[in-house]
């Protein structure tokens, strides 16, 4: 203190000495006046008590009521903060109670207005209200308002220092002290610039979806950073928390951040959120059973109707999807049938593929809108590869195109130029792995016709089969005759062309019967065929029994009681 005195003297020197002298004189004068009245304060309480005797009290009240009222008025005007601070613990709950009542009236009205709404959403909320016992209006409010708490600062009112803070884990950290300092300063600034000595301060600020709420108390404020649309309830909850916190705060000014038992809980963001979503003051609602039963029945009926329709729609979709997946030249990425009555197909389509639209339209309910979102691609589906080969090669009449298992086979007779071009081009066709041109002959080749005929004989044999009534009793001798004729013709052609030709006999059986028995039966049928043909003039050394195990690719198609002949040829050893 002495130091500051010296500082002042350094600055003010003589002026200060004069000032002190004047101050001393004033004090002396005041002392004189005081002296006369010195006894009064001591006497005043006794005098007041005496004045209340008899009808004195009424007179005193009469006399004082006007000045006390004016004094209160002046105090409210000029020392409002002191009065507000004194009344804070009373006013807060009182106001809150009034607001809660008002809100409840409002929500009751709201409730009635919404009572009759039977939209699916309304029904869902009504169900939720029924399930949880929370009034319907509040469920509506809760579902329509969504918000999140980012930060909550408890700020010492005078210094603007942060006493405690809570932040949501996923939001960026803030310099809480600087921010709450600025908030306090801005609050003061707003009050100073617009309010004069009016109480209150910055209560909220909004920037886009970001919202700042300040809830004020006598010694500390709560600043909340939020996003979204908070329910009005939240402000009440915050106000309540702030009152709790005031009860916890020590009398002495907080020394920066403090740890107070119960403070964390009062500030917990999740609890606040939860508290704001529910109205703790509302009594549990008595549920009226009849409207509920009706509503439940309506919901049940609607649900059943909806489920059946949904199930039917799902089946249609399933069928459509199956058809699409099997459609040649189409690759399906997804079928969107989430909106009933409309199907959107996304995927790839080969330009040569046929549109599946008509086929799908048949599988779906009549009014279904059908949209495709296609992108082009090159399909390796056998049907598409064959189609592509036909388009690219443009085979003349007399040439047949077959494609299976990556093998493109061209058979027949065609002009040499076309054969040469095809030989070149065919290997480039997407999807073709192996090229089989053994049976393709140039028309200019003198033996082309014979080659083609030999190929045709091989094909014809493949088509022929002898069917059995039972065991090896042939149903009709005609196929056997035809086989014999073809085989003999093949031998003639082979001799001309210099091929070595052999025939294999195969036997088949239909489904019933044990494995061992059936196998024996197949062998007997194959042997029977060889013997019959030999008897009819086909050289026996050219006939042999084929593999008795019918090969997998053919078995299902000729799974009946039959025998057939296969032609195999190779360049003969003398290589003519």
């Amino acid at each position, binding site marked *: 203190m002495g130091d500051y005195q010296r500082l002042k003297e350094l600055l003010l020197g003589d002026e200060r000495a004069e000032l002190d002298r004047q101050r001393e004189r004033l004090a002396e004068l005041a002392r004189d006046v005081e002296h006369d009245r010195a006894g009064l304060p001591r006497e005043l309480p006794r005098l007041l008590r005496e004045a209340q005797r008899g009808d004195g009290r009424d007179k005193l009240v009469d006399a004082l009521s006007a000045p006390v009222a004016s004094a209160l008025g002046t105090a409210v005007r000029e020392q409002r903060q002191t009065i507000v601070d004194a009344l804070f613990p009373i006013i807060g709950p009182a106001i809150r109670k009034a607001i809660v009542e008002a809100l409840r009236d409002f929500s009751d009205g709201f409730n009635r207005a919404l009572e009759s709404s039977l939209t699916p959403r309304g029904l869902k909320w009504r169900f939720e209200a029924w399930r949880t016992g929370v009034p319907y209006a509040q469920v509506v409010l809760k579902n329509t308002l969504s918000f999140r708490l980012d930060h909550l600062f408890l700020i010492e009112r005078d210094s603007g220092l942060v006493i405690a803070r809570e932040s949501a884990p996923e939001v960026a950290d803030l310099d809480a002290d600087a921010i709450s300092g600025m908030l306090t*300063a801005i609050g003061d600034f707003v009050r100073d610039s617009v309010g004069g000595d009016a109480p209150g301060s910055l209560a909220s600020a909004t920037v886009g979806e970001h919202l700042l709420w300040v809830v004020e108390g006598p010694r500390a404020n709560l600043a909340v950073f939020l996003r979204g649309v908070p329910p009005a309830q939240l402000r009440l909850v915050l106000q309540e928390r702030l009152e709790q916190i005031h009860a916890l705060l020590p009398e002495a000014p907080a020394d920066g951040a403090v740890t107070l038992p119960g403070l964390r809980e009062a500030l917990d963001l999740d609890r606040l959120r939860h508290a704001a979503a529910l109205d703790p003051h509302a009594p549990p609602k008595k549920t009226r059973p009849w409207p509920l039963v009706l509503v439940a029945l309506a919901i049940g009926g609607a649900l059943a109707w909806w489920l059946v329709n949904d199930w039917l729609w799902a089946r249609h979709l399933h069928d459509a999807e199956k058809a699409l997946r099997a459609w040649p030249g189409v690759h399906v990425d997804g079928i969107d049938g989430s909106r009933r009555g409309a199907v959107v197909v996304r995927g790839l389509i080969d330009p040569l593929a046929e549109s599946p639209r008509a086929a799908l339209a048949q599988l779906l309910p009549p009014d279904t809108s059908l949209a495709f979102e296609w992108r082009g691609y090159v399909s390796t589906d056998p049907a598409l590869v064959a189609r592509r080969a036909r388009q690219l090669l443009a085979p003349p009449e007399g040439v047949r195109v077959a494609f299976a298992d990556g093998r493109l086979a061209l058979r027949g007779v065609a002009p040499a130029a076309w054969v040469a071009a095809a030989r070149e081009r065919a290997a480039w066709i997407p999807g073709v792995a192996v090229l089989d041109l053994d049976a393709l002959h140039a028309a200019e080749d003198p033996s082309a016709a014979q080659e083609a005929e030999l190929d045709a004989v091989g094909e014809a044999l493949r088509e022929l089969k002898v069917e059995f009534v039972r065991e090896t009793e042939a149903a009709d001798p005609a196929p056997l005759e035809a086989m014999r004729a073809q085989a003999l013709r093949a031998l003639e052609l082979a001799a001309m062309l210099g091929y070595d030709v052999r025939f294999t006999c195969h036997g088949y059986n239909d489904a019933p019967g044990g494995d061992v028995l059936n196998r024996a039966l197949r062998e007997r049928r194959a042997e029977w065929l060889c013997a019959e043909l030999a008897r009819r003039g086909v050289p026996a050394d050219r006939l042999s029994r084929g593999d008795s195990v019918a090969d997998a690719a053919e078995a299902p198609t000729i799974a009946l009681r039959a025998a057939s002949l296969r032609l195999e040829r190779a360049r003969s050893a003398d290589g003519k």
Partner: protein
Amino acid sequence: MTELARKVCMLGDFGVGKTSLVSRFVRNTFSDKYLTTVGVKVDSKHVALPDARTVKLVVWDIAGKSALDALNLNYLRGATGLMLVADGTREASLRATLNLLMQARDVLDDPAVVLVVNKLDLVERWQVAPATIAELRRTLPVVETSAQSGDGVEAAFAELARKLAA
């Protein structure tokens, strides 16, 4: 762990370099624009104490005036430290600063104070005599600084932090 935080106000005549000193000292949370719009800017910085504790200084920079009006007195509320700033090249700024201290002491209860005489880089033009500074040192810690070169800035705030934590 409870953190020690203290509110510190910059006090001094217009143009003495308060804002420059704060900018030197802290990382800026807010743009200086706040100073002209709101009249105040708040920044914070942790300062290590000799005994290995740290104190967080929350520094309020007030748009400079030579007298504190009601508005600025509000900003002082709750401050426990004052950084007085004078401009060495202007003797009058020293007097103004000390006047501000007297006014501030009416609202604040025994604040920690450090006096900074700024613009040390212009020392050849200083009007404040070394004798005056020596005299002031008997009452207050006085640190000569240059916000421009940074000389003495850390030391001045460190001294204030030390007094605040004492």
